[in-house]
């Protein structure tokens, strides 16, 4: 922000934590960014009554004095967009934490300002249009290879329409260099650079929304096979503390088949962000073969950072996602945790003395949640390409009780619900995604893709799901009479369910092989489990016993295939399949004779 642009207007009249009031603010606009006090802390106007503005401040307000000035900027809270975003860690209002650390040391000093994007750095720009071309919002007029895995398309900002009157040749330019000029329809001229701004609370426009058709493959079997999310879909991961929300989000951020990942740490631990920062650069994207950090942006408003910035961090993240979507990319946003965001709303609302609704949350909580999840979707971009934003929000219900307001409201706006289960987590069955309480409404949209890989996919999936559901019922009886009192056929169901849980559902994020499971391997595992189950059922019908089945030597291999057979080792897959079937054949023959 240029010093000269800033006009002094208001005077602080009250300080109540992150909420302050200022007088002489009649000319301020709603949601305008202001700089508060002598330290010039960043804030946003959230209410105007007569000449008093209420402002939420994104930094700690200790020491602010009534009487200190408030400066208006005339701009809504915006993010800066352009090359240099990828691989960066920002705070909730897009301050680059690396630069902040360079200036203020390990502890974040207040009032610190740093450019979100490096304005000195030169990017190799390739123009794609020439002077004379007609352009409008979203037109891609050039490109920059931002990282080796991501081509950054330089787009005309959404509010610009006209014709290009100049364009610099291919070359190395800094982000603020005017690379082209557009004559707008009203005859005025507008210079464009590699960087642009967009207000975070306003969804970026698209040409149209498209129906969802493709799965967002994640490499987690329980998700891909049983509760899939579609590209452009929205999912929630609710779970009590320590049940695996963050680990699941991180696994998705690592392996989901998206071209760009936005990871928002909202009101959670600092160490978790550090972990991502440390680990991602070392990890290789199985698809691009490049470091995962090259496709990732981190937004960190950790739990000890100011609460107002927590509220905005979610919008900062989703706006960055939309920007890359507009380039035609599949983007996935992880928000961990949306409950902290809702609690920030509650805290701010409390300080504003608004009327509370459920459990102290403001009445507008559901509307805010809805508008956040609405920003997911598969779209036709302004440039006519296809892009998507998938949103995955962690939910942290108090006491692990899903009947609380945030979980309840969220479940209305998402279509995929991965319920984490305390008992599974306690038994260290990870991911602790419950097959009883989870659901995905994207199954119909995504199953076509799977059926194209394997005609029997739906049958296989449903077969295993049925066994798991039947097991739930049988367990109820077994809890009363003991499993041994059940008929052999039903005990077989229990046994198969146990195998499905061990061999398929459980997936350890730290297992070198099993942390990511390719679609091909998932299909094979599914097929093998179904084959085993069907044959086993026949064997029991023919008079065989569970003990016979337990003796099948390949059973142990079946239970261990997830971590013993590599994603690409099709020879090992075939050989295990053959061995298992051969041994079952032998068992059947023995029974017949």
């Amino acid at each position, binding site marked *: 922000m240029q010093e000269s642009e800033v006009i002094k207007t208001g005077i602080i*009249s*009250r*300080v*109540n*934590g992150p909420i302050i*009031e200022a007088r002489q603010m009649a000319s301020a606009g709603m949601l305008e960014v202001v700089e508060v006090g002598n330290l010039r802390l960043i804030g946003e106007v959230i209410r105007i009554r007569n000449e008093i503005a209420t402002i939420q401040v994104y930094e*700690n*307000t*200790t*020491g*602010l*004095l*009534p009487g200190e000035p408030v400066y208006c900027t005339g701009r809504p809270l915006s993010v800066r967009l352009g090359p240099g975003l990828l691989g960066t*860690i920002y705070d909730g209002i897009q301050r680059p*934490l*690396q630069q*902040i*650390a360079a200036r203020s040391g*390990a*502890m*974040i000093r*207040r009032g610190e300002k740093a450019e979100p994007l490096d304005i000195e750095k030169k990017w190799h720009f390739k123009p794609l249009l020439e002077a004379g071309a007609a352009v409008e919002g979203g037109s891609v007029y050039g490109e920059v290879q931002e990282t080796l895995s991501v081509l950054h398309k330089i787009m005309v900002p959404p509010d610009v329409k006209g014709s290009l009157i100049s364009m610099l040749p291919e070359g190395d330019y800094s982000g603020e260099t005017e690379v082209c000029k557009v004559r707008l329809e009203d005859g005025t001229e507008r210079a464009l650079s590699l960087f642009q701004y967009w207000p975070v609370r306003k969804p970026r426009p698209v040409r149209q929304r498209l129906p969802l058709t493709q799965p967002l493959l994640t490499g987690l079997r329980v998700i891909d096979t049983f509760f899939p999310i579609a590209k452009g879909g929205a999912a929630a991961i609710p779970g*009590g*503390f*320590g049940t695996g929300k963050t680990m699941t989000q991180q696994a998705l951020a690592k392996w989901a088949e998206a071209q760009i990942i936005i990871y928002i*740490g909202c*009101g959670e*631990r*600092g*160490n978790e962000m*550090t972990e991502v*920062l440390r680990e991602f650069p070392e990890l290789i994207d199985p698809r691009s073969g490049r470091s995962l950090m090259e496709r990732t942006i981190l937004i960190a408003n*950790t*739990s*000890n950072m*100011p*609460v107002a910035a927590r509220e905005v961090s979610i919008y900062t993240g989703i706006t960055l996602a939309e920007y890359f979507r507009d380039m035609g990319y599949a983007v996935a946003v992880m928000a961990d945790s949306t409950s902290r965001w809702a*609690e920030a709303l*509650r*805290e701010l609302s*409390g300080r504003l003395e608004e009327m*509370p609704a459920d459990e*102290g949350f403001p009445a507008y909580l559901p509307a805010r949640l809805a508008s956040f999840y609405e920003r997911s979707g598969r779209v036709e971009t302004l440039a006519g390409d296809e892009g998507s934003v998938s949103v995955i929000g962690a939910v*942290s219900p*108090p*006491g*692990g009780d899903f009947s609380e307001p945030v979980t309840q409201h969220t479940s209305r706006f998402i279509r995929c619900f991965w319920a984490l289960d305390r*008992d599974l987590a*306690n*038994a*260290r069955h990870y991911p602790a995604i419950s097959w009883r309480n989870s659901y995905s409404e994207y199954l119909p949209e995504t199953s076509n893709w799977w059926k194209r890989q394997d005609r029997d996919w739906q049958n296989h999936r449903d077969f295993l799901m049925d066994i798991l559901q039947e097991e739930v019922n049988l367990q109820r009886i077994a*809890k*009363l009479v*003991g499993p*041994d009192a059940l008929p052999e056929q039903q005990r077989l169901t229990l046994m198969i369910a146990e195998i499905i849980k061990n061999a398929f559902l459980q997936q*350890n994020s*730290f297992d070198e092989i099993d942390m990511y499971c390719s679609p091909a391997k998932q299909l094979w595992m599914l097929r093998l489990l179904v084959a085993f189950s069907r044959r086993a059922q026949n064997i029991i019908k023919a008079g065989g016993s569970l003990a016979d089945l*337990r003796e099948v030597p390949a059973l142990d291999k079946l239970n*261990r295939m997830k*971590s013993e057979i590599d994603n690409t080792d099709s020879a090992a897959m075939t050989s295990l399949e053959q061995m298992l079937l051969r041994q079952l054949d032998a068992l059947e023959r023995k029974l017949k004779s």
Partner: protein
Amino acid sequence: MKMPGLQYRGVRNIDGPLLFVDGIRNVSFDELVEIRTPSGELRLGQVLDVSSSSAVVQVFGGSDSLSKAETRTRFLGTSMEIPVSKEMLGRVFDGLGRPKDGLPLPLSAERRDVNGSPINPYSREYPRDFIQTGISSIDIMNTLVRGQKLPIFSGNGLPHNRIAAQIARQAKLLNENVEFAIVFAAMGVKYDVARYFIDSFEQSGVLNNVAMFLSLADDPSAERLITPRAALTLAEYLAFEENMHVLVIITDMTNYCESLREIATARGEIPSRKGYPGYLYSDLASLYERAGRLHGGGGSITQMPILTMPSDDISHPVPDLTGYITEGQIVLDREMFQRGIYPPVAGLPSLSRLMKDGIGKGRTRDDHPHLASQLFAAYSKVKDIRSLASVIGEEELSPADKLYIKFGEVFEHNVVSQGEFENRSIEQSLELGWDALRILPRSELLRVSEQELVQHFDKPVAVNSVQEKV
């Protein structure tokens, strides 16, 4: 910062620990206030809400014997600060960081705001150094690492203090011989508790390396809000300026949260669960997040807060929100305690989130991660089978299930249970774990690899021989 200002006489209202002062000028948010009671006693307070002409002040010393007309307030122009220096080790302070041992304030040029500043996540170093506590149930299953925040979730009458003292006494790194400096903060606990820790530190000869901040049960409750902050401010100084490894023990967080609730209620704030303010999470995080390591720095803060769960209810807001912020929790189990098991570390709900990066190859032992996972899996089955047994009777269990029952007993008695002064090496603990697993059929052990089975399950190592090696 401006200079200490005028003294004001009289207040508009007194409500619980809050004073409402009118006619003030030049008062800033969070500013420290000196309050003089009608009898001349001095107390400290802090500005919670300020406008051009009035302020809400929270009194740390309690508002008893204050009067509307005769209370005087002076705004001190700074927020709450304490001096910090290495000389504070070996000393005892009150809940606001003032010497309580009769000795003068440590000579220190440096004073620091007790609220600290948030650590930049970019500047953190991810904690990975295994701390051997000598307690098997922690070392194998809920490993502590240096720079972790790992609370003890306890209940009234459970031996949390003994466990904390045992950890403080035994904690060490495998291949490093640095002592932890200990910063101890007590909020609202009885003098006996403080005394117990003092005696225990004295016995192990580390008292010179301990700084204590005591706000005891009979001290004013609002003071408790400062106590952990004062303690952590010193801890941060020691860890990040003096490069020391600091273990911070804070007890009892439930008392702290009650003080916070008291203030919130007095201010007429809209409560969220059980009357606690909606910002309890953020407030707790502002304490718990003051743990960890910094990139390029030598020191660390390992935090071990203790809290008692009201009615042993882990879903109560205090343990619940704590569990969401901390890096796991050691949960104590009343039923195990009553069966005479010490330490009664609950097998399933306990968790160490940082364990995954602190154990295994090159850190503890290659088989450690899988062994721990297997023990959890087997023990969770024990729980199911025990509840089945309580319905159908133990005799009716299948032979396989009976083995699990037996495993459960051996696990609780040989692995979890140990002496208060028994200090087990990690090898010993791991071998005890394998010993317990050996009760189960090999084919049940799917969480450990075939190779680990061959190496550890098939070839028992006598635990005693391990003991001798150490």
